Structure formats: structure tokens, C-alpha cells
């Protein structure tokens, strides 16, 4: 085991996090120097203090946001992959679905939140629906292109050996699509939480977005920023974790 050395460790931290550290230092000193009202803009240290002082409030809301994002992510990816498989089986379905998904992938989904809320009600089901929609598109697009790109020649081999269309899907196309699905997972994971938070902000029932809206209206700005900081950390870690999964899948299946 190597001895722990402080200097290389610090250098590494600075190399990795100089941008974030600069940002935090600039924020802290700007709030202190410009004497801006702390209700309008708290310092990062004050936000950190609030996080340490009221962990219970945050934990409750983190739980509900995480649950709805995770569930929505699973459903969205399942629906996206399912439709991609349908499009793989039938050229008719592919022809009907492809332009619609291109159309929808350029739609600002946030603009749909109020419409969906009117349809499903102002509660968690709307939040769930938004997460499903936002995770559905990347999984459909990436799964479709992955299903169509098995290793060259492998499809002929399967045909020669008398594989049925279903065998072809199960043993060749789906495994070949896994790396692409992993990319979709990486893209969707970070967005799922942020989209859930925007929807919660508008619905106002539970979760980090709700906590943000409530505390901001009550001028508990530190807690509002705390909720945002927690969401930022979760979303960034989801992005990193999903990136790790994506790398593993890519190494294993391609």
C-alpha cells in the first residue's frame, strides 16, 4: 500500500475540481462583498449549514423524488425498448413510428407539463408521466439503431443455422443493442431527476421540487438552495454512475 501523501492528493483535487471550487469561492465572496440580502442569495456555507441542521426534511423529499424518477426511468425505458422491438419486427410500425419520434424528440417537454397535469391531475402521476416521456425518447431512438446494427455477417449466420425471427431478436439483436441502451440510460438517468423536479415544482405535492417551491415562497432561501444542491448532487452522481454502467456494458457486449 502506498503511503498517503497530502500534496499529490490536494493537487489531484484541484486538477479535478478547480472549476467547481472557483465557482463556489466566487459565489461566497460575491455574496459577502456585495452585501446582497441573504434572503435573496445565501452563501454556499449557509446552505451547507442548513443541510447539516435539517437532514430529515431533505431525506423525506429526496426519497419521493428518487422513487418517482427511478420508477419513471424503468417504465420509460421499457416502453421505448418495447416500441423499438415492435418497429424492428414490422417495417410498417417502423415507418409509422420513426417520424413521430423525431417530431417528439424536438418538443420542449417542459411545455407539456401543464397539459398533462390537466389530464392526469395535479399530483404524482403527472410527475411520473413526465419522467416516462423524457426517458422514453432516448431509449426508443438508441434501441432502434442498436437493434439494426448487429456485428457484420452474424445475421446471415443465424439465418443459415435456421434461427427464427424471435431467436434472432433474443440471441442477436437485443444483446447487440445493449451498449446503445446503456447510452440511452446514461442520457436519461440525469434528466429523469431534473424533469421530475420541474414537474414537482409546478404540481406542488411532494419531492425536492415541491420543497424548493415551498421554501422559496416562505423566504427560507437557504433551504430552497439546499434542495437544489441535493438535486444537483444526485443528478451529477446519477450521470457518473450511469456512465460507469455504460462503460461496463460497452466492454462486455461490443
Amino acid at each position, binding site marked *: 500500500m502506498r503511503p498517503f501523501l497530502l500534496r499529490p492528493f490536494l493537487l489531484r483535487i484541484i486538477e479535478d475540481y478547480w472549476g467547481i471550487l472557483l465557482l463556489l469561492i466566487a459565489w461566497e465572496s460575491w455574496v459577502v462583498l456585495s452585501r446582497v440580502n441573504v434572503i435573496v442569495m445565501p452563501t454556499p456555507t449557509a446552505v451547507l449549514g442548513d443541510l447539516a441542521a435539517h437532514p430529515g426534511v431533505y431525506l423525506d423529499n429526496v426519497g419521493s423524488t428518487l422513487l418517482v424518477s427511478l420508477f419513471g426511468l424503468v417504465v420509460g425505458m421499457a416502453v421505448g425498448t418495447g416500441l423499438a422491438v415492435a418497429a424492428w419486427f414490422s417495417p410498417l410500425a417502423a415507418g409509422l413510428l420513426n417520424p413521430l419520434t423525431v417530431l417528439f424528440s424536438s418538443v420542449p417537454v*417542459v411545455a407539456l407539463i401543464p397539459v398533462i397535469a390537466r389530464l392526469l391531475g395535479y399530483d404524482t402521476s403527472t410527475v411520473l408521466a413526465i419522467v416516462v416521456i423524457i426517458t422514453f425518447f432516448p431509449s426508443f431512438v438508441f434501441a432502434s439503431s442498436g437493434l439494426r446494427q448487429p456485428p457484420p455477417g452474424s445475421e446471415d449466420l443465424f439465418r443459415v443455422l435456421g434461427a427464427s425471427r424471435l431467436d434472432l431478436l433474443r440471441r442477436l439483436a437485443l444483446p447487440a443493442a445493449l451498449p446503445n441502451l446503456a447510452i440511452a440510460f446514461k442520457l436519461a438517468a440525469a434528466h429523469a431527476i431534473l424533469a421530475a423536479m420541474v414537474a414537482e415544482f409546478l404540481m406542488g405535492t411532494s419531492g425536492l421540487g415541491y420543497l424548493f417551491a415551498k421554501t422559496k415562497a416562505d423566504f427560507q432561501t437557504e433551504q430552497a438552495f439546499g434542495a437544489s444542491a441535493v438535486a444537483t448532487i444526485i443528478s451529477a452522481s446519477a450521470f457518473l454512475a450511469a456512465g460507469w454502467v455504460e462503460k461496463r456494458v460497452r466492454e462486455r457486449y461490443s
Partner: protein
Amino acid sequence: MKSSALGALGIAIFLALWEVVGRTGLAGISWPPLSDVLETLTDASRLPLFQRALSATLASTALGYAWGTTAGLALAALAHLLPPLRRGSDRLAAVLNSVPSIALGPIFLVLVSRESTPAAVSSIHVFFIVFVSVSAGLQRATPAHRDLFSVLGADRFRRFGRLELPAALPALVSGLRLAWPAALIGAIIGEWFGAPRGIGILIINAMQNFQIVLLWCAVLLAVGSSLFFYGLLTLLERAAYRRFG
């Protein structure tokens, strides 16, 4: 040709379903028929309202798009030219992208004016997409080309300007295409924090006053303008790939 006919059929089926669901009231009063929405959208008395809202939102989006592209390009170039800064700038961009947009609103409200908040929120969305695509694009120049430039005595700045930046152009344009809907979302969310007018304001007001048809109109305006610019940028992307790809 056959696939585009099928695609048109798919979109037609979708629009027809929308109309039928609205006419029969299957989804309740919150789902008006498409024809009602289009009628309100083209109603002459509403036109000034829609025009003001759309032009305000598009102006913010364009401004945020320009800021975000500049910032994304600058950080990607900096990280490329000074490799020790690379890991840190990747992390900075990833964290900035993970900040919820609804939290960016109040921050920019203090930093810039109420009118500029939508553009500022939208610039953060654009910044990340441009940074990621340009960073990847700058790596696209082949080692052989790099070596050639070095042998001919080009320093890293000249190599950057003459070789790596042109090689990154297609990636930049792809990023720009993906960034437009993101920029529009940023502008709409930014408007919720006290902007005087815009599509975001229209959406929130219609939602709170239960003006269902107006709400759908606002959503259609957002979707339509997003599609229009997305299509335009797709054409630009094809041209860029033909020339530099």
C-alpha cells in the same frame, strides 16, 4: 419514398386521433379537439398576444443560444489547449448541467435583470451541449494530420485554428441542432421567474386560469417554433457534414 409516405401517414393518424379524442370527449374537457385549438391560434383578436409572447421567447432563446455557444466553445477550446485543465472543466460542465433549471431562475434573477433571466437559464442548457460536442469534435483530427502540422512547424495554437477547429465543425453543428429545444426549454422556465411576457408566462397563466384551449395554443406555439428551428439546423448540419465531415 415509401418510408416518407408511411411517416406522413403516422403523423396523420396521430393528428386524427387527437381530433377524435377531443370531439368525443374521451379524455374529458382538458383535451380539446385539434380544430378548436387551431381556430383559437389563428383568431385575429388573439394574434397580437401570441405574437408578443412568441417574439419575446424567441429573442430570449436566441440570446441564450448565442451566450451558451460562446461559453461552451471557449471552455472546450481552453480545455483542449491546456490539457491540465481538462478534467476539471469536464466536471464543471457536468455539475452545471446537473443544477435544476428551476434553481437557476432565482440565481440569475439576482445576477442579471428580470428580463435577461430567461436568456441566462437557456444559455446554461446550451453551454453544456456545445461544450460536450465540441470537446469530442476537437479530438477528431487524425494523428497523421497532427504530426504533419507539427513537422511543418505549426505551434499548438496554429494547429488548433487550422486543423482541429475545422475538424470539430460538424460536431459543433450537431450540438447546435440538439441545443435549440434545450435552449427553448431554458427560456420558458426562465420566464416563470418574473419575465414580463413570453410563451412560458402564457403557459403558466393559462394553466392557473383553466383556459384549456389557450394552454394548448401556447404549447403548440412552443412545439411549432422548436420544430421549425430544429429542421433548419438539421439542414445546416447536413451542409456542414458534406463540407467538413
